[in-house]
C-alpha cells in the first residue's frame, strides 16, 4: 500500500523539478531572444527603434505617451525598477550583465560614479544644440572635463516648507535665519509639548548635504586628475554642531523621514515644517494627504540675515547608457524630454519638477500653483527667486554611495547613542578617502 504512493510522489517530484528546470531555461531563453528580436527588428525595418527608459517619477508615463504619439519611429518603453540610489545599483548590475536600459534618470550626485564605472555614455556629439538651452551653473552637474553625460531634468533648491495653519496657531513667523529657526523650535516645544518644528533625518543624506552646501561646504573638489576630499570641513562642522545642539536639548525630533512614523507625524501636525527640495509638493500628497492646502514654501533660513544662498537636494539628469544600441535616438529623446516646451510643461504638471532648462523656467505652466499647494499661486515664483543662489559642490565624488552610507550609519548611531555629529563626519571622510584610494583614484 505504502510503496505505490511513495513512488508516485517520486515521479511527481521529478516532474515538478523538470518543469522547474524547463521554466528557468525558458525564462533565460525568453530574455535573450527578446533582446535579439528587438535588435533584429530595428535592423530590419530601418530606423524603427524601441528604447527602454528607467524612471521613477510618478505619472512620467503621461509624458512618455506624448513622445510616443509624436514619434512612431522611436518608441519609448518605460519601466520603473526602483528609485534613487537603488536605481543606480540596478543600473550598475544591469551594465555588468550587458542588458542595461537605453535611457535612465540619474540624480546629479550619482552621475560621476556612473561615468567612472563606464555605465553612462558620453553624448557630447548628440547634444550640441541641447546644451545651449542651459545655463553654465546647471550644466556643471552633467558636463565633466568638457564631455556631456546627461541632459539636466530639474534643479531642486533646498527650501523651507511649513504649515501655515499651525504657524499661525502658535504665533510663529517664518524664520529668516537659523538662529530664529532654533528659537522657534524651542517655542514649539513649550507651546505644544507633543509637537516639533521639524526632525533631524539621519536616513536620507540628501537634505544634510544641501544644508552643508548652503553653509559653503566643498566636500569634493578637483584639480587636473587629482581629487580633494573635505567632508569634515569647517562649514559642514558648523551645520552639524547647530543640529546637534537642537537634537541634544530635545528641540527637534530625531526619527527618520519617509517612515510610517514620520508620515503620520507630517499628516497629523506633529511636525510643523520640512526642509526639502522644490519637488516636495509632488511627494507631500502621498506623505500627508490630509494636509492639502495647509503648506507654504519659503526660502531656507540663512546663516547671516539676508544671505540668499541655499543648497540643493536631488535634481536629476536624463542619461544614455553605454549599453544602448541607439545612442543617437536615446539622446534625442533625453533632449526632447527636458528642453521641449510641451514636454517640460507636462513634467511640471505631472511631477512638479522645477525645470533645469532656461527656457523651461518661463513657461506659463509655472504661473499656477502645484496641485497640493492651491493656497500658494506664487509657488514657482518663490522657487525661481531662490534657484539662482542654490550652490552645489564643485563636483560630486566618484563614490558618493560610500559617503552616503557613512552618513546614514554615522548620524544614526550618534542619534541613537548620543554620540558626536562631528565624529560621524570624520568617519565619513576617512571611509570616502579609503574607498577612493582603493579604487585607484588620485587623492591629493
Amino acid at each position, binding site marked *: 500500500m505504502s510503496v505505490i504512493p511513495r513512488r508516485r510522489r517520486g515521479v511527481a517530484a521529478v516532474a515538478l523539478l523538470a518543469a522547474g528546470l524547463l521554466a528557468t531555461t525558458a525564462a533565460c531563453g525568453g530574455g535573450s531572444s527578446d533582446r535579439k528580436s528587438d535588435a533584429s527588428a530595428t535592423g530590419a525595418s530601418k530606423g524603427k527603434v524601441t528604447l527602454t527608459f528607467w524612471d521613477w517619477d510618478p505619472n512620467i508615463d503621461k509624458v512618455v505617451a506624448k513622445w510616443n504619439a509624436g514619434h512612431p519611429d522611436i518608441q519609448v518603453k518605460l519601466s520603473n525598477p526602483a528609485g534613487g540610489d537603488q536605481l543606480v545599483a540596478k543600473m550598475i548590475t544591469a551594465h555588468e550583465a550587458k542588458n542595461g536600459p537605453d535611457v535612465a534618470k540619474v540624480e546629479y550626485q550619482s552621475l560621476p560614479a556612473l561615468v567612472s564605472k563606464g555605465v553612462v555614455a558620453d553624448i557630447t556629439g548628440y547634444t550640441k544644440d541641447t546644451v545651449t538651452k542651459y545655463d553654465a551653473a546647471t550644466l556643471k552637474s552633467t558636463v565633466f572635463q568638457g564631455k556631456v553625460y546627461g541632459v539636466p531634468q530639474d534643479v531642486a533648491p533646498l527650501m523651507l516648507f511649513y504649515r501655515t495653519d499651525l504657524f499661525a496657531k502658535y504665533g510663529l513667523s517664518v524664520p529668516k535665519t537659523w538662529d530664529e529657526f532654533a528659537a522657534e523650535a524651542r517655542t514649539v516645544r513649550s507651546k505644544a509639548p507633543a509637537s516639533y518644528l521639524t526632525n533631524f533625518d539621519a536616513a536620507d543624506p540628501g537634505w544634510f548635504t544641501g544644508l552643508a552646501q548652503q553653509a559653503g561646504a566643498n566636500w569634493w573638489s578637483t584639480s587636473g586628475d587629482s581629487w580633494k576630499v573635505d567632508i569634515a570641513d569647517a562649514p559642514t562642522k558648523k551645520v552639524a554642531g547647530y543640529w546637534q545642539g537642537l537634537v541634544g536639548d530635545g528641540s527637534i525630533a*530625531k526619527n527618520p523621514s519617509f*517612515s510610517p512614523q514620520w508620515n503620520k507625524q507630517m499628516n497629523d501636525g506633529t511636525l510643523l515644517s520640512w526642509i526639502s527640495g522644490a519637488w516636495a509638493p509632488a511627494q507631500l500628497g502621498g506623505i500627508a494627504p490630509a494636509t492639502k492646502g495647509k503648506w507654504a514654501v519659503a526660502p531656507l533660513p540663512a546663516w547671516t540675515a539676508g544671505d540668499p544662498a541655499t543648497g540643493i537636494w536631488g535634481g536629476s539628469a536624463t542619461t544614455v547608457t553605454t549599453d544602448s544600441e541607439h545612442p543617437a535616438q536615446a539622446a534625442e529623446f533625453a533632449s526632447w524630454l527636458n528642453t521641449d516646451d510641451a514636454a517640460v510643461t507636462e513634467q511640471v504638471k505631472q511631477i512638479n519638477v522645477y525645470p533645469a532648462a532656461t527656457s523651461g523656467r518661463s513657461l506659463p505652466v509655472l504661473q499656477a500653483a502645484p496641485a497640493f499647494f492651491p493656497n500658494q499661486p506664487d509657488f514657482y515664483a518663490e522657487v525661481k527667486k531662490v534657484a539662482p543662489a542654490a550652490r552645489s559642490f564643485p563636483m560630486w565624488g566618484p563614490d558618493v554611495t560610500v559617503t552616503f*552610507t557613512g552618513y546614514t550609519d554615522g548620524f544614526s548611531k550618534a542619534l541613537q547613542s548620543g554620540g558626536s555629529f562631528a565624529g560621524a563626519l570624520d568617519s565619513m571622510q576617512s571611509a570616502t578617502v579609503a574607498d577612493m584610494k582603493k579604487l*585607484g583614484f588620485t587623492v591629493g
Partner: protein
Amino acid sequence: MARTTTTARRTGGFPYLLVLPAVLLFAAFVVAPGGYALLLSFQRRKVNGGLLGGGTHTVFAGLANYRDVLGDADLWSGVLRMLALGAVTVPATVVFALLFAVLLDLERTRLKRITRLTIFLPYAVPGVIASLMWGFLYLPATSPIGGDRVDFFGQVAVYFSVGNVAVWGAVGFNMIVIYTALRALPAELFESARLDGASEWQIIRRIKVPMVLPAVVMCTLFTVLAALQVFNEPNTLKPLSNAVSSTWVPLMKIYDDAFGNSDIYSAAATSVVLTAAALAVSFVTARLIQSRVQQEAA
C-alpha cells in the same frame, strides 16, 4: 530469480535519474555561483586613470580582499550582533516550537486544527511583509502595543524586536516538524505509562520530549543556520529607526558592499568567509546530532 534480476536492473540507473534534476539545479544555482563568487573574491576593481577613472578594469588582488574583510571592525561588530540576535532567536524558536507542539498533542486541547494553522500561518507570510507589519506595531506614532511608552528600538530592546519577527516566522514550521514526530510515537507507550500511574507532565518530560529529541535537534540546526543568514528582518526595519545600521549583521554588510557601494569583490570575500563559518557550524551541529542519535540507539 528472474524477478529479482529485473528489479535490480530496473533500479540500477533509476535512483541516479531521480536525483539528477536536483544535482543539476544544485550545480547551476549553488555550485556555479559559489565558484564564481570565489573567483571574484580574489579580484578587485581599479579605475583606468584620469579624473573620472575612464572606465574600470579588474585586477588580481590575491588575498587582499580577505585581509580587508577580516580586518574590518564593522564586520566583526556585525558578527557580534548576529550572535546576540541568535542568542535570542534560536532558544526562543526551539522552546516555543516544542511547547506549542506538546500543547497541541495533549488529549484535552481543543480547536487543534485552527490553533495549529494560526501558529503556522506567520511562516507563510514573507519575512519582508512581516517585518513591515511589526514595524508599524513598534513605531510610537502607529503602535497599538504601547510603542509610545516602550522604546522598541532601544539599545537592547532592538535585539528582541528584531528577534521577535524572526521567531514568529520560524516557530510554526518547527512546531509542525516536532508535532509530526510526536504524532508518530506509538500510543501504547502512553497507555502503559498511564497504567503505571504517570501524570501527563511526567509523560511529557520522561517520554515525549526524549523521544522527539532528534526532531528538536534538527530544528535547532535549521534555526542556527537561519540565524547565520539573518537579513530580511533588520534590513526591512532599518528605514524605520536609527537603531539599525546598514552593516548591522554580516549579510546586510555583504548586500551593502555589493549593491550599495558596488564593490562586488569585497562582498564575495565576505560571503566566502561567512559560508565557511556556516559550514563549520553545520558540521559541528551535525556531528552533535549524530552522537546523540547513536546514544539513543545504544
